[in-house]
């Protein structure tokens, strides 16, 4: 079977992660600039090497139209051949890297920065208005606010409740995901919740946000920026850091009501991604899944086929996904416990693992990583298969 021309054509060569979490020294645009600078430095490249910018604007970008152009101007970038502001929610990170790689393979660009930044958290106010994660992401949809229906937490909660009803997924199952990822976070110096161990009792005692979600079912909210630099495989070999090659990619967007499908777009994205990468699930050494909620991890594990549909709960309850388990999932603690840069969090952790930079949390075998992105309410999905080996 002829190999896909995209297979292994491009590589991630630079990773830039700004301080994450409750950091307030700049704004969304400033975090984006800082992340690109860090990523270029990591790659051993300069601004002049960039000829493409893809930006996923977080919520704080709301009043900045044409974000990728704003970023270009802010960084004084000249003569770009690729520029786009993209938004598939949490699926954007992997999708940006896909588009960068496609443009590079087609000869339309050589070196592309893929960037996310956001600043949903405001500095602590002296008194009065409390800026919290909840208010940052507590947007209402039209008339539903009259019923007290606010925020993405509630939208996901309705879907999770259906999964519990249909498949017997339990609160303990959801808690198992939180615990496994907190154990990984304990090994990650960059994790916001590194020093906060979590037991199942702690999980059950944590306050409800929107039942069936406890506080620890929900991802963190972080200020910060994160960028990766994508270039051709050929060029990647001569740069500072070990290349992370793009072996396979795919997208899947199911449409319809997620409370009916109870399924992510992974069921569509996995086949083309794995075919391009010429791998099966058995070849995957490390798994970095988009985890806006514990529930999302359960569903995504099912939809990639790590277990049968509906058996994600019992699967995670065996604690196979934590440190020392047989399937390394969200090895930096994920967005539940390290930091929340939409889909860039799983991308960055895959790069770290494939480079062998994982320190205490490094998985022993790290040839192939599977990365997922998920946006909306299981609305959009993107897949990357990454490897430290050339295709």
């Amino acid at each position, binding site marked *: 079977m002829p190999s896909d021309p995209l297979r292994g054509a491009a590589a991630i060569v630079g990773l830039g992660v700004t301080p994450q979490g409750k950091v307030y020294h700049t704004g969304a645009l400033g975090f984006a600039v800082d992340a690109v600078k860090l990523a270029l430095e990591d790659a051993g490249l300069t601004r002049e090497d960039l000829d493409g910018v893809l930006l996923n604007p977080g919520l704080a970008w709301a009043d900045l139209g044409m974000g990728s152009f704003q970023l270009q101007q802010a960084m004084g970038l000249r003569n770009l051949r690729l520029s786009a502001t993209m938004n598939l929610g949490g699926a954007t990170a992997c999708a940006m890297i896909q588009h960068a790689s496609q443009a590079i393979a087609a000869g339309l660009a050589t070196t592309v920065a893929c960037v996310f930044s956001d600043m949903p958290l405001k500095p602590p106010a002296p008194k009065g208005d409390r800026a919290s994660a909840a*208010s940052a992401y507590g947007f209402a949809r*039209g008339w539903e606010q*009259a019923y*007290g*229906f606010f925020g993405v937490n509630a939208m996901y909660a309705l879907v999770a409740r259906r999964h519990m*009803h249909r498949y017997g997924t339990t609160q303990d199952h959801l808690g198992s995901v939180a615990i496994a990822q907190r154990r990984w976070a304990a090994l990650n110096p960059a994790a916001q919740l590194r020093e906060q161990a979590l037991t199942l009792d702690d999980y059950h005692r944590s*306050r409800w946000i*929107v039942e069936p979600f406890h506080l620890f079912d929900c991802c963190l909210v972080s200020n910060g920026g994160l960028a990766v630099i994508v270039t051709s495989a050929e060029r990647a070999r001569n740069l500072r850091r070990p290349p992370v090659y793009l072996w396979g990619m795919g997208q899947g967007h199911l449409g319809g009501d997620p409370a009916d499908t109870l399924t992510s777009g992974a069921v569509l994205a996995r086949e083309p991604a794995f075919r391009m990468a010429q791998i099966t699930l058995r070849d995957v050494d490390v798994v970095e899944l988009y985890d806006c909620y514990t529930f999302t991890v359960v569903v995504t594990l099912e939809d990639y086929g790590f277990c049968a549909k509906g058996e994600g709960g019992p699967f995670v309850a065996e604690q196979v996904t934590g440190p020392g388990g047989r399937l390394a999932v969200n090895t930096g603690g994920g967005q539940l416990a390290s930091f929340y840069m939409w889909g860039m969090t799983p991308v960055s952790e895959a790069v770290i693992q494939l480079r062998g930079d994982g320190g205490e949390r490094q998985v022993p075998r790290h040839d192939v990583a599977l990365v997922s992105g998920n946006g909306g309410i299981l609305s959009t999905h993107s897949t990357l298969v990454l490897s430290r080996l050339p295709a």
Partner: protein
Amino acid sequence: MTAVARPLPQITPEMAPFWEAARRHELVVQRCAGCGAHRFPARELCSRCLSREAGWERVSGRGQVFSFAIMHQVYHTAFADAVPYAIVVVELDEGARMLSNLVECPTDAIVIGMPVEVVFEDVAPDVTLPKFRPRRAAA
């Protein structure tokens, strides 16, 4: 009392017939003239048959809980004294699904599939919110 007022629904032209009926304590949903599907909330276009033709039809107000979530976090200060309260998606007997509140029921007694019926809550002189409660046996 100077309690913060709860947000009133945004009465868009598309949804105006729904709110007008609610004021009369009637529950109506949009029905596609192309394929006959009931739908909620109102939309310009039927996502099943792509028809733009639709009317409003009174429905029984009976249905079942399709899913639910219990709001504990206060996202709006006007709901501070209401938490925890139940958000429900009700699947009406006619087929459409409607997001609402379940009232007159302890939050720990809600189960998917429980039969419910509409009740009307007059929240402002010109605004009535259809909500749902556990269905009572016919008198």
